[in-house]
């Protein structure tokens, strides 16, 4: 496989870092200038990411070594199909979220907006860093940066509840990553003396080198426990707690950047650290698949009970993230492809849902599901997008979510794991149970007039959120449909990943 040295990864990461400085220093001068930097950086970043795409599709790898600090600890970027897949997703959704954020923050007249946009930009830089990292050290580095710079975003409201949620957020993410993930990194390095990702898995030859199965199993368990951003049970409770953040933060960070970084790193660990062969031999893939299945079902059941819209979405996220883990844990080509596709398909669906939750809050100041009766008539665009988003979550064609479930299902058959099919079916039913009642209530129930009667019944017609918020959510909803019809780029990339990791067999 051909390797090209290029500084594009550095440019991509530094665009939003430069933007951070500009936002910080111009933040107090002019709001418009400050927001212009965000948008500009988002677009430039996306442009640079896309500029790498043709090379990657030709099967090349873009590499750049920044600095080798001490032996074994090198900051190195290596953009392969999997990396660019995630980079495209995150950088594209950043553009849309930026517009939405601006609308949300201005409509609610939030405080500390400069801090908010600064942290947002750093978070995106770090997400790109994880996406493009070439070894486990670089991954860990940016993983921690994401945790640290999203803490102010979660604590944004500075109320006691926000602080408590943020405290749980940082305790779970930083705590487990230091206690477990870092230990796993140490064990990996002490076993094989390198942390560089490889297609066959960097621990692939460890068994031959005399490393015991117990050692490898412990390392694997530590990785899975340490990558808490993937919200695998029992380390999921930070995610609902983090819902105290403003909705755009929940949308991009907790449906896309943060949690997807988590599952992305899980995928990396499974494919590039351990490798398909080793995990099959150790039987750890199947074990992981069952833990993920457990998470899928239990989180869905918990979601059913939630009355707060964002909390329900949060538990839905916990459940959906485990699809990605489930897929990759099955270790068969179709399942891996499905798992990778689910990263992007869930992202579009879930960001739409969070956007609508934010729009409802801004336009109608409603946060509970029981208050949503009849809201579809006032906010038809928003709720239509919500419907599309939930159908995608459930996995009904012609929406994107169907594709990944289909592939994972086929993968389960390839792996001869019939119980997994039952899990998929069961979770689909549960998804329908917690999403469809909302859609039904929004469109077919009458609004309760006794609430907010001060201004609720006097006005008729549409009461949508500002256009700058509605357009992004409509776009992402359309994206969820478009990805079913034309998933070509993402599917090609997913297939490239699958060939590279299973190609030898």
């Amino acid at each position, binding site marked *: 496989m051909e390797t090209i040295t290029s500084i594009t990864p550095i440019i991509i990461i530094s665009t939003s870092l430069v933007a951070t400085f500009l936002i910080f220093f111009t933040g107090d001068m002019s709001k418009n200038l400050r927001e212009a930097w965000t948008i500009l950086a988002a677009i430039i970043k996306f442009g640079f990411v896309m500029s790498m795409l043709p090379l990657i599709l030709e099967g090349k790898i873009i590499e750049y070594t920044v600095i080798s600090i001490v032996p074994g600890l090198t900051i190195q970027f290596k953009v392969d199909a999997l990396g660019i897949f995630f980079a495209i997703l995150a950088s594209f959704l950043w553009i849309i979220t930026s517009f939405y954020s601006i609308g949300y923050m201005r409509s609610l007249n939030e405080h500390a907006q400069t801090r908010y946009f600064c942290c947002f930009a750093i978070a995106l830089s770090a997400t790109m860093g994880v996406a493009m990292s070439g070894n486990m050290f670089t991954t860990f580095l940016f993983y921690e940066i994401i945790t640290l710079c999203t803490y102010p975003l979660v604590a944004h409201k500075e109320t006691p509840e926000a602080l408590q949620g943020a*405290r749980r957020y940082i305790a779970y993410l*930083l705590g487990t990553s230091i206690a477990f993930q870092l230990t796993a990194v140490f064990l990996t390095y002490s076993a094989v003396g390198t942390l560089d990702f490889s297609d066959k898995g960097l621990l692939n030859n460890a068994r031959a080198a005399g490393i015991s199965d117990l050692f490898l199993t412990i390392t694997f368990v530590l990785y899975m426990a340490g990558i808490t951003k993937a919200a695998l049970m029992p380390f999921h409770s930070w995610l609902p707690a983090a819902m105290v953040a403003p909705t755009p933060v929940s949308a991009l960070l907790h449906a896309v950047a943060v949690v997807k970084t988590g599952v992305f790193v899980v995928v990396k660990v499974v494919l590039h650290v351990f490798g398909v062969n080793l995990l099959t031999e150790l039987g750890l893939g199947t074990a992981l698949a069952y833990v993920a299945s457990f998470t899928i079902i239990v989180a869905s059941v918990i979601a059913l009970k939630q009355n707060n819209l964002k909390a329900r979405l949060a538990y839905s996220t916990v459940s959906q993230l485990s699809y990605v883990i489930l897929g990759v844990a099955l270790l068969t080509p179709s399942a891996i492809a499905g798992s990778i596709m689910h990263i992007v398909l869930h992202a579009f669906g879930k960001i739409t849902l969070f956007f609508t939750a934010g729009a409802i809050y801004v336009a109608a100041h409603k946060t509970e599901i029981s208050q949503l009766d009849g809201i579809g008539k006032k906010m038809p665009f928003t709720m239509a997008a919500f419907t599309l988003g939930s159908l995608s979550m459930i996995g009904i064609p012609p929406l994107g979510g169907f594709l990944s479930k289909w592939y994972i299902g086929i993968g389960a058959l390839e792996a001869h794991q019939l119980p997994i099919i039952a899990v998929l079916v069961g979770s689909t039913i549960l998804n329908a149970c917690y999403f469809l009642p909302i859609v039904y209530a929004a469109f077919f129930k009458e609004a309760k007039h006794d609430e907010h009667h001060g201004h609720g019944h006097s006005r008729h017609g549409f009461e949508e959120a500002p256009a700058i918020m509605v357009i992004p959510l409509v776009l992402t909803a359309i994206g969820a449909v478009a990805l079913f019809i034309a998933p070509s780029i993402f599917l090609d990339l997913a297939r490239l990943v699958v060939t590279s990791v299973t190609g030898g067999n």
Partner: protein
Amino acid sequence: MKEQAPALIIAIPLLISFINIPVGLLRRSLCYPLTIIATFSCLYLSFIIADTVINSGNISYRLGGWEPPWGIEYAIDHLNAYMLIIVSLVSFVVSVYSKKSIEKELAREKIIYFYTIYLLLVAGLLGILATGDLFNLFVFLEIASLAGYALVAIGDKRAPLATFNYIIMGTIGACFYLLGVGYLYIVTGSLNIADLTKLLPPLYHSRVVLVAFAFFIVGVAIKIALFPLHTWLPDAYTHAPSTVSAFVAATMTKVGAYAMIRIMFTVFEPSFSLETLPTTEILGWVASAAMMFGCIMALAQNDLKRMLAYILVAEVGYIVMGVSVGNREGFTGSVLHILNDSFMMVSLFLITGAIMYKEGHRNINNLFSLHKKMPITMGCFIIAAISMVGVPPTAGFFSKWYLILGAIDAQKWFFVAFLLLSSLMVAVAFFRIIQSTFFKPSENHNAHEEPLRDEVPFSMLLPIVVITVSLLIIGFLSGQIIDSLIQHTVPKGF
């Protein structure tokens, strides 16, 4: 001058320290520039020495031209050179910072004596590092300790009691050390370290030598405040003036750790320290206890400075732990951590001093919206805190990397767990502060308007910023520091 550098680096602060008194009595304002000149010369000389050591090998300087082992020899290898740079750099940075902070915290007539004693302490510490003679080391150890007692004692109103405890413990430590020196002198008739290295091996099973070794370790353990001999440290460092805490926290324990490494691996052979006696095994567990105890106590503190003092107790545990695992990675980690920890401690104590300067107190629970009043200082605080926790790419991560690799290599799984657990507790301790200073709204209701920006004076801010930014730079330079200095300090057989 290059040849005389090892003597000059001690003579200059010593001389200027005495000049400070007559000059200061004439014009008090001259003390500060004089001190800066002295510490800057030390810094310059330490770089010359390091350059000589790296390029032309170890230095052996004969004081007054007397041949060792009868005369006093200043023997400088990579480890000394490395430590000299750390101590003189820290002393320079702290002396730049000192002016405003001291003026605020001390009575005016004490300022002259402060600078005098400060330079005496610098001279003492540099002397410990430069000398190649065990008794001379004791002399400098006492100079440094006495100066340290005096500096702590000029702190707040509870400082005298804290100092009294410190003196008692410190003197006991010095006695143990001196007894060790005496015992070795009885059996070998020599005090020169290089000479002792040659004379001692045949005597390794002599009971006198074994006892001497134990005395050395206990004596030094008191000086570095190794748990459970740390009791003097939290009080002394809490009640000392901010400038003093910053300097002694960053250097005293580190220089003590240097003395421990010298005795364990140069005076005695590594095989003696590792195998003949179960020293390293005991030290490893004691260090683990130090890490746990220090961190737990740190969590319980509301006084920022006292919390840092307990973290220092834990950090000493890190350094000793790395030495005790007895392999190359662990040792590298320890030596690297000496550097990182000095810088982190200076940075955090200086920031505490800055908070003290502006707010007048250090109670963690009552510091509101500091990030708006002192954005630069608190930005530095975050970087230093992250480095303390050991998050890459800050310096703190790289020494922990080596420490943990060392523990894994030695198959000491408990130590690995302790190292990680203490990192976690440090994280909790610092996030508690970050949360209350950054995100907790002020309870004061009339403070609804934005607090005004109110940073400390430039002469205090600059040292904080420089030292904190250097935490990031050191992080990236770790590899080079290890290549050019630390790898040569690893004892043979590791």
